[in-house]
């Protein structure tokens, strides 16, 4: 061991410490609306994380190309989480100090961790189509916004659709439905609702967990081969989805009987399986692949044509790309709504933006103006309802592309609302929170 080495090692360490200190101190506080972007472009879920992130950033670029939010330019910074909760928490801490407007964790695990932190920091969380299902109850979850859908809603729509296929929900009696799910909070979210439905309609629910990241499914599909369920619900993400489809093909399980949640129904999930996935159905979180939507064309002409696109051009308009686009749209529109109240052309704080997300009123006319005609239906939130709307459609993979194969459907409020309220009350009791008062709703 030479002294030279020692000095080198010591200087590396010293540089590390000082770098970490200075970079946190150097905040750029410009007059811009800052959107932190939690992404995962690496790791097991990268194939699905990348299109979402590209769509998200491209839409923010489009907002600037359109002239900002009432003149306020938007800025953003990406932080790589790798879908790991502790890295996500680190990203949150790093970016929140830069004047974060809203966080979209894109991971149920990170959502759970941030749900505890957001109220203290007064930063809203948008978890469109994922996160905690009970956080749709704005009376308890003041800072969470599971806009346009929760897993309970998704599971409910799937059961309804299957019931319709069978010719009525009462025909489900005695049927076997298997849930192949990612063994994490994400995959477990739909279980309470499915159990509720199973008890109500008398179908047999089979729970088949798959461990992270989901490439080991041989045993699961052996069980499916053995028990031959009438339907398989797939609650996977990333490589788990394509693996499940390949295993279904190998097992000989009909793909037509498989229904994925909206995170299991995008191009990366079926592309490699190709024709083997033909007939596979998945829920669409309102939108599907939208290559012809006005917003897609605008992104192509105003962002990609200028050489400023974030990802490859042919990705624009794909399912997950569009999910990123619509997630960014919610983030931006909430700020626009907040500006109506707190002053147009001003930079909104996280707290002000929260008001915007709570009083979001995206009418059809507004959506059309934003280029989302035909992509999604109106969404309006309130103090009580942080979800806004829970419309969904089924789309089916025909071997080359996703095609819509059902009408708009909505989760049954009679079943969902009491469950949401009960779960939210349980959370409030655990945390010793009281429900928000009408006065708090105005704030």
């Amino acid at each position, binding site marked *: *061991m030479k*002294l030279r*080495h*020692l000095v080198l*090692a*010591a200087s*590396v*360490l010293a*540089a*590390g*410490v000082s*770098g*970490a*200190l200075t*970079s*946190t*101190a150097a905040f750029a506080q410009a007059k811009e609306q800052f959107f932190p972007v939690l*992404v995962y*472009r*690496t790791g097991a879920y*990268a194939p699905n994380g*990348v299109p979402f*992130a590209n769509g998200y950033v491209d839409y923010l670029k489009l907002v600037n190309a359109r002239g900002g939010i009432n003149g306020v330019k938007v800025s953003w910074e*990406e*932080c*790589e989480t*790798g879908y790991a*909760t*502790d890295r996500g*928490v*680190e990203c949150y*801490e*790093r970016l929140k*100090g830069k004047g974060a407007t809203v966080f979209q964790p894109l991971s*149920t*695990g990170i959502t*759970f*961790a941030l*749900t*505890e*932190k957001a109220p*203290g920091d007064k930063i809203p969380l948008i978890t469109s189509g994922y996160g*905690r299902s009970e956080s749709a109850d704005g009376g308890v979850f003041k800072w969470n916004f599971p806009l346009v859908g929760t897993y309970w809603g998704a599971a409910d729509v799937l059961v309804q659709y299957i019931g319709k296929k069978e010719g009525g929900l009462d025909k489900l009696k005695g049927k076997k439905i298997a849930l192949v799910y990612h*063994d*994490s*909070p994400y995959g*477990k*979210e739909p*279980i*309470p609702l499915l159990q509720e439905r199973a008890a109500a309609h008398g179908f047999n629910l089979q729970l088949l*967990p798959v461990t*992270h990241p989901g490439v080991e499914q041989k045993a699961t599909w052996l069980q499916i081969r053995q028990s031959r369920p009438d339907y398989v619900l797939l609650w996977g993400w990333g490589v788990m989805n394509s693996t499940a489809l390949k295993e279904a093909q190998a097992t000989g399980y009909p793909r037509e009987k498989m229904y994925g949640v909206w995170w299991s129904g995008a191009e990366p999930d079926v592309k490699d399986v190709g024709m083997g996935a033909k007939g596979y159905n998945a829920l669409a979180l309102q939108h599907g692949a939208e290559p012809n939507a006005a917003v897609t064309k605008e992104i192509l002409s105003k962002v990609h044509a200028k050489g400023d696109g974030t990802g490859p051009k042919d990705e624009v308009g794909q399912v997950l790309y569009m999910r990123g686009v619509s997630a960014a749209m919610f983030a931006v529109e909430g700020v626009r709504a907040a500006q109506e109240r707190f002053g147009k052309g001003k930079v909104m704080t996280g707290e002000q933006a929260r008001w915007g997300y709570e009083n979001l009123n995206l009418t059809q006319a507004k959506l059309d103006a934003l280029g989302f005609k035909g992509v999604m239906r109106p969404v309006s939130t309130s103090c009580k309802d942080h979800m806004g709307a829970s419309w969904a459609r089924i789309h089916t993979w025909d071997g080359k592309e996703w095609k819509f194969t059902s009408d708009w459907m909505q989760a049954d409020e009679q079943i969902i609302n009491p469950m949401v309220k009960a*779960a939210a009350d349980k959370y409030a009791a*655990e*945390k*010793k929170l009281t429900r928000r008062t009408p006065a708090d709703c105005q704030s």
Partner: protein
Amino acid sequence: MFYRENGQFKTTYAADQQIFPITQDRWAVLAIVAFAFIGVPLLVDEYMFRAILIPFVILALAALGVNILVGYCGQISLGSGAFMAVGAYAAYNTFIRIEGMPLILALLSGGLFATLVGMLFGIPSLRVKGLYLAVATLAAQFFCDWAFLRISWFTNNTSSGSVSVSNLQVFGWNIETPLHKYLFCLAILVLFGLLAKNLVRGAIGREWMAIRDMDVAAAVIGIRPMYAKLSAFAVSSFIVGVAGALWAFVHLGSWEPAAFSVDRSFQLLFMVIIGGMGSIMGSFFGAAFIVVLPIFLNQFLPLLGDMVGVEISTAAISHAELMVFGALIVWFLIVEPHGLARLWSVGKQKLRLWPFPH
């Protein structure tokens, strides 16, 4: 010149047996501890607390526990993540199921249950050694992963398998702000550090080291291998369990079994190997290296890119982060296989001879 022990004569056994026999060391360590308690809170911002210091302090505590087992007793363990998980879930269950349970007791009960589980999985160490034992302890990891995912009683029957705690209080002191969390964890770390240091200096620590160096010879001179090995497992898992409980309660607040996956076990083992096996100081170095370096690289690489006028994408940064991190580990282990703690002691040795090395 300044770091010299000339004239420091030990005239009593007590003086000779101090933890830090050299006066300069003693003052330096006292100064560091004082700085950690008083200076750091004045200097750093919330991000440093939440993202770097609190994880560092808690993982240093866990590394300390692992070091006792792996570094001092030579029993390679890949189940540390599991013992952390046991600590976290046991603490959680005692905390929510017993009305009015004080936080400290809940944390200690986490350690206690981790001790029991650790000893249970330590029993194979009486028969198997080295890599074989590593695989046996891996079983602990898989078992605990399974148990906390599947047995819903542990997670208080939450549907998603994710649990959370809040309203942490110690003697009426709310542990809410990052500063309080940091101080709380730091106090526990200092306490356990002192405890561990004294344990490894004492008779039992010598037994562990004898077993590590050559178990047959140790048995011949009258050390009971069973007692030594199981006590190492017990002490180590107690500390790791408390660290796990802190990680869950104080750092994450809401967690799922994936927070204590096999990755965590590897991470802890790397901390011990890189920091220095069989060294209390090494645990701190190792934890700092593993916790701080990836975050630092993540923030430093874009700056570096800016300087030379290249914009590096997020994906490229995280790939580069992994590569640089891996390369640094390999480099460190080639240059100094005994870890960062050894570098530290080499540095001290040099300073003692400076400016006239011979």
